[in-house]
């Protein structure tokens, strides 16, 4: 990370020594600490003034104070203290600003990773490390409730804690791990892949990252609130959610912060991809990862406001005594589910399409072959985007929706299997006759394809209305969602982290440990989640701390396997930490890949490219001698090689 000074000496002025006054008033953690308190006080004051003025009793209504002061004002104070708004505040106040001020840009030392940083590469790493923290936290919660579920009856936790653990586990995994982990990898890679110096809106990018820890700690800290953490599942159905203990609003508001972060990043991706592609990088020359994030960003921008709305409605029912979902006062209970799933089904694709992109990059590079049917691969992403908005009621086949809605929604849900199938078959055709290097990223990518096929097929059962009526809200659904989100999303996240680890850190990971990690995960995953299909079909509902004794043996097996699965993560963390500190120095292009991010040093220079690359061809020209993707610094980038005859094919 010394590359900053070498490439752009002019942008880094020596900093004057700081005085005590500076420490308190300049952007940073000290200012963040006192501004958090100050804004909390302002929030409290606002509530008291309005309640006092209106004469409402009690004056100190802690539900309202929690929402306004703790969950809204204090985080804004934290962000302001950290300096996320400094530039805009100065600009709005008419103070002099330096548009080309790069003092907040780049990672020179570890401290640069703990402040709002405008370098997409720093932000990418901030995202990935933060999301892994929440992944581990949510994983530990899963271990805890699996311990409770190992035997029928109640052993370790009470019902409230159990429901809280299940709910926070899911909420963290979805909103603080899978979605932002993809945003982090995309953040790091997309500008490099399209030949851009950074994202279109670097300060917005910095802000969108810092919203994330706020959302995460909000959800974690809900365990400390009287009454316990939110305990209504990540789906948080009304009206149950409207009269739960106070922890529930930590979910309602946590989703707002995570959702805002998601929307800002998606807008940034869209503008970056549309306006900042290098010369010659037409849409049909973009790597599929860029296509995937383009599609995902459209989904995020269109759908995420719906979950924000649904959570606001639930919170308003509690705090402002509105009646959106209060049937006794004319509220419409199913309205919640319609709005919620109008986001949360597309969210499944938000959690999957970037993984499709990663799989495409890894499979093509490691099989040394062009992506089979590149255009159909891109078009199938767009087909999923459009169809994804027409299937939400398949989560509601037993919910009491209008009966006529079910068959049309079943048909669209079935049809969405077609573009998904196209992608799977295209990956298989890409691998076919390739020269496959079975290293860790490739193992995870192929592991993803095989597990995702199982998850996709169990999805067909759930789309078929009569079967869904039997298995809805059972462990069959738990098995399905984990085959899709663990076997699907998480495997691609691991593939992506191993694949780009050399680029991000400048060091190689340990291949042997990587493979051990893969096999432990692959086996542990299947032993944990495959039996859940059986348990669910036989009659075990989900989200229960206690269950019928006949499911005891399989639950015991599942729990033991899940502990093994948890242990496999230790291998991953050890490999990442040790390799980051002491791994062998990585070359610029260890995989001999053709896409642009591999044509610069590892890690890349602070503004990515010394000279704007000129894109001249497809990103996947493996097997064609001399065919190249781009010209960089007047030199051709890595080129394809003509295949040598493969011996096995000829006898």
């Amino acid at each position, binding site marked *: 990370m010394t590359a900053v000074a070498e490439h752009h000496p002019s942008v880094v002025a020596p900093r004057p020594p700081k005085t005590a006054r500076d420490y308190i008033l300049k952007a940073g953690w000290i200012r963040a600490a006192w501004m958090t308190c100050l804004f909390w006080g302002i929030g409290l004051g606002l509530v008291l003034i309005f309640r006092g003025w209106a004469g409402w009793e009690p004056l100190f209504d802690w539900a309202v104070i929690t929402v306004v002061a703790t969950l809204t004002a204090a985080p804004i104070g934290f962000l302001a203290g950290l300096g996320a708004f400094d530039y805009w505040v100065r600009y709005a106040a008419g103070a002099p600003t330096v548009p080309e001020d790069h003092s907040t840009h780049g990672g020179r030392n570890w401290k640069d990773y703990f402040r709002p940083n405008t370098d997409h590469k720093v932000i990418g790493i901030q995202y990935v490390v933060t999301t892994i923290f929440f992944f581990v936290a949510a994983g530990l919660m899963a271990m805890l409730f699996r311990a409770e579920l190992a035997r029928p009856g109640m052993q370790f936790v009470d019902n409230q804690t159990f429901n809280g653990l299940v709910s926070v586990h899911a909420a963290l995994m979805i909103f603080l791990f899978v979605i932002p982990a993809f945003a982090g990898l995309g953040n790091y890679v997309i500008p490099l892949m399209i030949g851009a110096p950074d994202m279109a809106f670097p300060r917005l990018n910095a802000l969108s990252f810092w919203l994330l820890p706020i959302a995460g700690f909000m959800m974690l800290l809900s365990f400390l609130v009287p009454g316990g953490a939110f305990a209504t599942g990540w789906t948080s159905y009304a009206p149950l959610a409207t009269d739960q203990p106070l922890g529930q609003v930590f979910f309602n508001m946590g989703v707002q912060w995570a959702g805002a972060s998601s929307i800002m990043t998606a807008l940034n991706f869209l503008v970056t991809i549309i306006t900042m592609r290098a010369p010659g990088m037409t849409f049909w020359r973009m790597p599929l990862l860029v296509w995937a994030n383009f599609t995902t960003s459209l989904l995020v921008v269109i759908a995420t406001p719906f979950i924000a709305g649904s959570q606001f409605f639930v919170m308003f029912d509690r705090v402002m005594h509105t009646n959106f979902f209060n*049937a006794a006062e004319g509220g419409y*209970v199913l309205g919640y589910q319609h709005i919620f799933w109008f986001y949360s089904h597309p969210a499944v694709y938000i959690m999957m399409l970037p993984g499709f992109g990663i799989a495409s990059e890894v499979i093509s590079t490691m099989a040394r072959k062009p992506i089979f*049917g590149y255009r159909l691969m891109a078009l199938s992403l767009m087909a999923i985007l459009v169809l994804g908005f027409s299937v939400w009621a398949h989560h509601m086949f037993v919910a009491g929706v209008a009966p006529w809605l079910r068959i049309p929604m079943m048909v669209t849900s*079935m049809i969405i299997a077609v573009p998904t199938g196209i992608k799977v078959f295209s990956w298989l055709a890409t691998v076919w006759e390739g020269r496959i290097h079975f290293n860790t990223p490739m193992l995870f990518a192929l592991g993803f394809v*095989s597990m995702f096929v199982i998850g996709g097929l169990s999805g067909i059962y759930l789309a078929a209305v009569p079967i869904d009526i039997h298995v809805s*809200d059972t462990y069959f659904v738990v098995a399905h969602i984990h085959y899709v989100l663990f076997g699907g999303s998480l495997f691609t996240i691991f593939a992506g982290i191993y694949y780009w680890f050399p680029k991000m850190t400048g060091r190689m990971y340990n291949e042997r440990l990587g493979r051990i990690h893969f096999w432990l995960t692959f086996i542990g995953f299947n032993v944990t989640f495959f039996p859940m299909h059986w348990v669910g079909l036989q009659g075990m509902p989900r989200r229960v701390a206690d269950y019928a004794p006949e499911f005891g043996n399989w639950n015991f097996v599942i729990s033991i396997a899940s502990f093994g699965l948890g242990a496999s993560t230790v291998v991953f963390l050890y490999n990442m930490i040790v390799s980051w500190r002491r791994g062998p120095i990585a070359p610029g292009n260890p995989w001999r890949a053709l896409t642009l991010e591999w044509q610069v040093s590892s890690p890349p220079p602070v503004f990515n490219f010394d000279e704007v690359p000129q894109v001249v061809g497809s990103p996947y020209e493996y097997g064609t001698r001399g065919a190249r993707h781009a010209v960089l610094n007047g030199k051709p980038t890595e080129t394809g090689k003509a295949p040598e005859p493969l011996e096995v094919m000829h006898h």
Partner: protein
Amino acid sequence: MRRGSILQLVGLGVLFGGLATLVAVLIPWLPPVASKQRDRIDFVFWFTTGICIAVFALVAAVIAYSLLKFRVQPDDDSDGPPIHGHTGVEIVWTAVPAILVTAISVVSSIVLVQNENVPKNHLDVAVTARQFAWTFTYPDQDGLTSAQLRLPVDRTVKLHLRALDVIHSFWVPEFGQKQDAVPGQDTTLVITPTKVGTYPVICTELCGLGHALMRTSAIVMQPAAFQTWLRDQKNAAAAPPAEAGKAVFTSNGCASCHTLEDAGATGTAGPDLDKLPAYAKQAGKPLEDFVRESIVDPNAYVQSGYPKNVMPAFATLPKDQLDSLVDYLVKSSTGGGS
């Protein structure tokens, strides 16, 4: 592709397809069937499974074949053949899955329509769901209520579901039918039991702290036995107050959360009702008033060690039933019993 490699690929496909078929057939994946609807659901299940096994075998065979045949040494830096696509193949793998999922959709639609068909001579039962108990009412039998669902065999029943507080969901795995009970909305579910027996009724929608305990039984009886049961129940309702109180206790599902020795109730989610006199002393109220208040307005005094807002208020209980329930609880907890 050479003929030999095609044969090897087909061999792998047959191997994986065979293994998957064995897993599908040898393991009893579905619980016993006890309704006509489940029979039809099982048909869709196996129809879909057949198609899924074929797709799985294809994918597994290609991956396994690639693993065996196309892997290279790490120092081999040659590329594969520059194949960018094949329009014919791409059309095939778009069209074939589309046809398969259409077939599943058609079969599912037909079964769905059949499963919701209600014959004229059906039985109506009103299902009331509340935290955390089920109540079943037979409108044709002067509103007879029961905490268990009793049904005559081979006669279609139409359940009319209502929820008093939050969303619940009615499911009997052996019947295969499931339906949410939604506040402010009436939903229905059709079941034709085909086998005499006792089956679990399970709430499958997270409804609060007692969700896992919100269970009861569906008892399918011979028509004659069902008629006898109806008659006995009507007689019991007209019995002396103590027994009537016990009937109210049972039919409102109190036993799912509370312990009461006299009624054979062993629930542990809520306070132990055999200790009511002690609780009343702690609350500083006369026993009878305390019991009545706790039923109508449970949050007025919550015994320490138990969470607030869990027990639903039974303020809608008819006056005579409430009186006999209070009477019964006072007597049985002070050792009087019935």
